[in-house]
Each structure stands twice: as C-alpha cells, then as structure tokens.
C-alpha cells in the first residue's frame, strides 16, 4: 500500500517532468493552424516512456498495470494539456480491445498501441444525443465474399487513427471489427472539435470484414464496448481533473501577481473566496475519481463500474466546466483572449465533458442505478 503510493507519486512526478519538457501549449496552438490534432513524434515519446502500454499485457509489450496508473498519467497530461489522444487510444481503444474475445487480434492491436506504431479509435457512436452504445444501426451482414459492414459512425476520435474498432449489429448481438482507415468501401471525413482534436465521420458502404478482423463476437461485443466506455469515462474525468488543477494554478498565479488599485487582485476577499470555491470543486473531482479508480481496479461487475464511472464523470463534467468558466472570469479581459492559457484548457474541458455522456446524462444514469429501498433508513 505504502509502496504503491510511492510508485504513484513517482509516476506522477515523471508525467510532470515529461510535460514540462514538452512545449505542450504552443504545440496545441500550432496544431490549430494545421489539419493535425497531434504529433506522431510526440506519440512515439509517450510510447518510449511506456505509458501507452500501461493497460497492455506484458506479453504484448505492455506494463499490465491498472486504471489507477492510467488515471495518474491522464491527470498529468491533462494538467500539461498535451494534445495527443492518450485517453482516447491508450485508454478507450485499449480497454475495448482487451475486453473482446479474439485474443490473437487483441494481442496484435495492443502491441501496436503499446509500441506507438499504430493508433486505434473506437467507432461506436451514431447519434450525438445518445451516450449509450447499446443500439447501433450499423450492421454486419453476409456479403458475397464474407461479412460486410454498412452504416455510419460519428465523432470517432482521433480521426487520424490507423484503424477503427467499429461496432455493428447482427441478429445475434453486437460485434466489434477492426477496419483499416484505407479499407475499401469506407469514407472518412474529419472535422475539428472545439479543443482542436479531430473527429471522423465514417460512412461504411459494405466494408468487407474477414473473420480475422472480428475483435469481439456478437455475444461479447456490447459488453466489451461498455467496459471500455466506463474506463474511458473515468480516464476523461482524470484528464479533466488535471486540466482543472492547472486552471486553478493559473488563476491563483494571476490573482497573486496582477495588481489593481495598488494591491494584488488576490487581496480582494471576493476573489479569494471564489478561488477557494474553485479549489473545492477540484477536491471534489479528486474524491470522485479516487473512488471510481478503486472500483474499476477492484470490481468486475459492469453495473457497479458504470455507476462509479457516472459518478466520476458527472462530477468532473460539471466541476471542470464551472472551474473553466470561473477561471476566465477571474482572469478578466485577458482570460477571454486566445493568448491566455486558460482558453486552451477550457476548450479541452468543453470537449471532454461532452464526450461519452455529459454531466447531466451521467447524473441521470447514476440516479437510475441507485438502490432506493435502503435509503430511507437514516432519516
């Protein structure tokens, strides 16, 4: 226990050193002028330090660690606002791949992820309103030369993935397939989100998927997806925690150094108390995340994991949005300019809090999963 805490502290320190050495914010700004959302070179460096393989089995070249370690990295990268799609690939895609039932394919894909050689993106969403993967319209059907996928996926992130993990309905349930970005019958169009990340819309016009590309059979696909979504929700919460910590730090620095009426802004009691309110929001995010990580590393029951994920993401979504909005206000006019660092963090928070269910959606799922009978007891 003590040992693990020390290891975690060392991991957090090395993430901090990593982002400090990287000009993350200027890279985010520079990428905006391109049609890229991240740098392959920076991605390789993430592979070099091993973090892309945290959830990858040792046999596939990974570290085979837990959600706890992944969350520490996500939080630290969020604090530094690294533009690379760490949570999307090393978190979400890796978790979905691990949860499938095609061990051979999974090992290849996970090895790709750990080595940084290839990036995978999960293509599950079809409707921007629904954050549940349970009802895809995309289908897998027998074709002349084997099964083919037909349908449409949206908000697939990162758009620049080398291949996609696509969910599709069949008579027997939902299956998952690996589809290469240059597969025949696949149209990919990309668009930039508010944070500069790029998402793809996939149009699948009878894309052939040989059996070897089936990552999860119809009996397993939905569960694999749900496990992956829950893990990604927790990791997005971890990244939002890091982003919010940094916003709090930026805001406190600004208040302490900027002067008005011959005093630092931080001398004004109203601003002091509002900074404290931000701090409380950050601590609440930390508490919710801590609990969710413990559940994900300790409990296999999907409903329990989903509730913990919803709890973390409901808190992170609302708290991070509140922190971001207030950080802009406390920065005054400066906070509204593109050159202020707060905006760079805010954009990412807007994107992450909308991803995989926003706070309102998660609050409802959390409430739906609450056991109600015993709750009157203490009254």
């Amino acid at each position, binding site marked *: 226990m003590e040992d693990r805490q020390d290891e975690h502290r060392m991991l957090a320190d090395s993430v901090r050193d990593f982002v400090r050495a990287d000009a993350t914010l200027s890279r985010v700004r520079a990428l905006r002028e391109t049609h890229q959302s991240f740098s392959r070179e920076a991605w390789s460096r993430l592979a070099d330090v091993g973090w892309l393989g945290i959830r990858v089995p040792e046999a596939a070249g990974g570290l085979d660690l837990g959600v706890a370690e992944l969350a520490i990295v996500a939080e630290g990268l969020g604090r530094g606002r690294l533009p690379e799609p760490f949570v999307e690939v090393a978190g979400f895609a890796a978790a979905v791949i691990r949860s499938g039932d095609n061990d051979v394919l999974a090992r290849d894909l996970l090895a790709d992820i750990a080595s940084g050689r290839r990036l995978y993106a999960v293509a599950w969403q079809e409707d921007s309103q*629904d954050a549940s993967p349970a009802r895809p319209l995309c289908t897998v059907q027998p074709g002349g030369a084997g099964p083919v996928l037909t349908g449409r996926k949206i908000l697939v992130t990162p758009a620049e993935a080398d291949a996609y993990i696509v969910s599709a309905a069949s008579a027997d349930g939902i299956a998952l397939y690996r589809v290469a970005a240059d597969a025949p019958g696949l149209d990919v169009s990309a668009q930039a989100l508010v944070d500069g990340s790029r*998402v793809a819309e996939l149009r699948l016009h009878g894309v052939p998927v040989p059996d070897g590309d089936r990552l999860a059979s119809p009996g397993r696909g939905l569960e694999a997806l749900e496990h992956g979504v829950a893990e990604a929700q927790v990791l997005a919460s971890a990244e939002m925690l890091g982003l919010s910590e940094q916003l709090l730090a930026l805001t406190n620095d600004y208040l302490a150094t900027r002067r008005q009426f011959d005093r630092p802004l931080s001398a004004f009691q109203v601003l002091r108390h509002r900074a404290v309110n931000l701090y409380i929001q950050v601590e609440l995010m930390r508490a919710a995340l801590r609990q969710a990580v413990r559940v994900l590393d300790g409990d296999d029951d999907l409903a329990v994991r989903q509730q913990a994920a919803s709890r973390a993401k409901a808190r992170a979504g609302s708290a991070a949005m509140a922190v971001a909005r207030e950080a802009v206000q406390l920065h005054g006019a400066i906070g509204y300019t593109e050159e202020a660092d707060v905006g760079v963090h805010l954009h990412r928070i807007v994107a992450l809090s909308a991803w995989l269910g926003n706070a309102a959606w998660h609050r409802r799922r959390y409430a739906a999963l609450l056991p109600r009978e015993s709750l009157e007891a203490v009254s």
Partner: protein
Amino acid sequence: MTDWNAMSDEAFRQAVRADLEANYPEHLRYPSRRLRWQEVREWYLDRAARGWTAPGWPQAFGGVGLTPAKQLIYIEEQERRGVARGPDQGVVMVGPLLIRYGTEAQQQAFLPRILSWEHIWCQGYSEPNAGSDLASLRTRAVADGDVYIVNGQKTWTTLAQDATHMFLLARTDPAAERKQEGISFLLVDLRTEGVHIRPIRNIAGHEEFCEVFLEDVRVPRENLVGSPNEGWSMAKALLGFERLFLGSPKLARQALGRLHRLAAARELYRDPGFMDQLARLELDVADLGEAYEGFAEQVRAGQPLGADVSWLKIWATETFDRIAALIVASAGSAAAIPGPQSFGDRSVDVLNLYFDAMPATIYGGSNEIQRNILAKQVLRLPE
C-alpha cells in the same frame, strides 16, 4: 422632413419596424459574432444616405434629434430585427462629446465625417494593467509646441483594425494629486506615424478587439477636447442612458431563442427535468425584461438613471451566461462541435453564445465592479 417626435410611440415603432423589415438584409440578422465594417458597411452607408446615422444627435448637428423615448423604441426595434452593431463609437461617444465640449472647429471637422462614416472611431480607454482601475492609466501626452507627443498602449480596443480614428484618455498632468485627475481627452488619427495596431484573437478564435501601441505619436493640440486634465470627468458625464443598454435583455432573449431551437430539434420539451431548468430561465429573462422596462420608463420620462441600474447589467449578463451554459449542457456530445451544425432540419450553433457570454460579465465594468458600486452607492454600506 418628418417630425418623428410628433408621432405617437406606436406609429413611430411601426414605421421603424416596417423600414427595418424592408431594408435590413436577412443574412445579417442576429450575427453570431461582432461583424467587421466591410460586412455591415453597405447597410450603414444606406442608412447614412437617408440621414439616420445619429438618431439621438440634435438636428442642428445633423442628427435626427429623437427624444430619449423614441430613441429607445428605435433601439428596441433594431434588437427585434437582429440588426448587427456597427462601429458606432463615433455616433455614441465622439459626437455627444464634441457637441457638448468641442470647439466649433472640432465640430465642423469631425461631426459630418462621423455622419458619413468617412471617419470610423474606436475608443481608447482601457490599458494593460488598468482594466477597471482608471487611476492607473499610463498613456502619457506631453505638450511640445503645437502638438502633444503621446506614448503608451491601449488594449481591448474593439475593432480598431477597422477604425480611422481613436478618442483616447492620456495623462497630461502626472503630478495631479488624485490619480483620476490630470487626464485629458485627445482625438487621434490612426494613420499618424507611431501608431501600431495588433488584433487580439479571442477565446472563440475571432479578432474582435486590438491592442493599439502609441510611440511618439504627434497629435495636434487642437485635437484636445474640452479643458485639459479634465478628461475623466467629461468621460463620466457622457455616460448617459447608454448605461441602460448594458442591462438590455437582448442577449439573454437571443440565447433563450437559441435554447428553444435546440429544445425543439432535440425534443427536449418532453423532458421534465429540462423543462424545470427552462422555466427558471424563462422567468429570469421575463423579470429582466420587466425591470429593464422600469428603467426605460425613467429614461422616457427624461429622468437620469441612478447607480441602481448596475444591477440590471449584472442580472442581464449572468442570465445570458446561465442560458448559454444550458445550451451547451443540452447539446449532448454535439457540444464539442464549433460553429453551426445540423439537428434534424434545424441548424444550431451551440458554442458561440457560450463564448459570447464570457466578455459580457467582464466588459462595461466587470460584474465585480458593478457589485462594488451597488454596495457603496445604493446600499451605502460603510467600508
């Protein structure tokens, strides 16, 4: 010439409305960001040709000479139509300044060119490190023969890149006892050597305001307005009923309309949880509108506005902000997508009002400053 003031309020309103519906172009209604001069130029020149650049100026100076009551109607109808705001500092600020404090020569030199839009003015009050605190104004103007030599930096200057002139406050007496004193009003041609304009990109990626650097800029002494060292008192005296507009329900209503569009597109009217939040905001806007009317009545009756109008600005901008936040929260994962996007057969921009709401609580005296004012001047709480 029509005597607009003699018309009944309702007849005037109908006339304005008909004019705007007939002439204001559809594609410029409710713009999703502050438009640039070239985008609104045609409309404003057309209006200028018809003599309507300055509804509030006296007729003797080329204005329409509307009463405050009629001006309010004119503004309300523009808001109703969604008319884009032009670079109106010349009309709103410089005109009234010169009419009240300017020399005849200044009036003749500048007023007609404001009316024709030959000159486009921007405001030079804000400086880095002196947002709400004018006492720490650092731009200096030193008299040297028949010019002032101006050095300093202005910031948050709205659309300076489109302007030809700037009216600015500069410190002319650094020894003045109170720091609000010793400040003068200068009119500066932006083509003068030593002026450098750098647009600032905002958090939404638009270039709405600028930094303006002034390095040994030579401004003719005849461009000083009113008495030297009394710039700040003049600037304050100019704040008339325009302060009302900081509390206009316009932006909140626009956001509420956007929320309804999204609600219709996403069938949120069937969601009782959403309806509870909507009802709260509907009431917030309704009560804002009623309170605005109360202050507008004062203006119409020719009474000056008190410091209490500050609460309207707080409520208007924070309500706008809450609605913008609910738009984002109601868009699901589409909230990450910038710009207009399709929801069924409707197009909705989810994020632009979210970003627009941010400066609203900061500019025009931040809401923190407004609360300071209310505590001191309205509640009269001892410090």
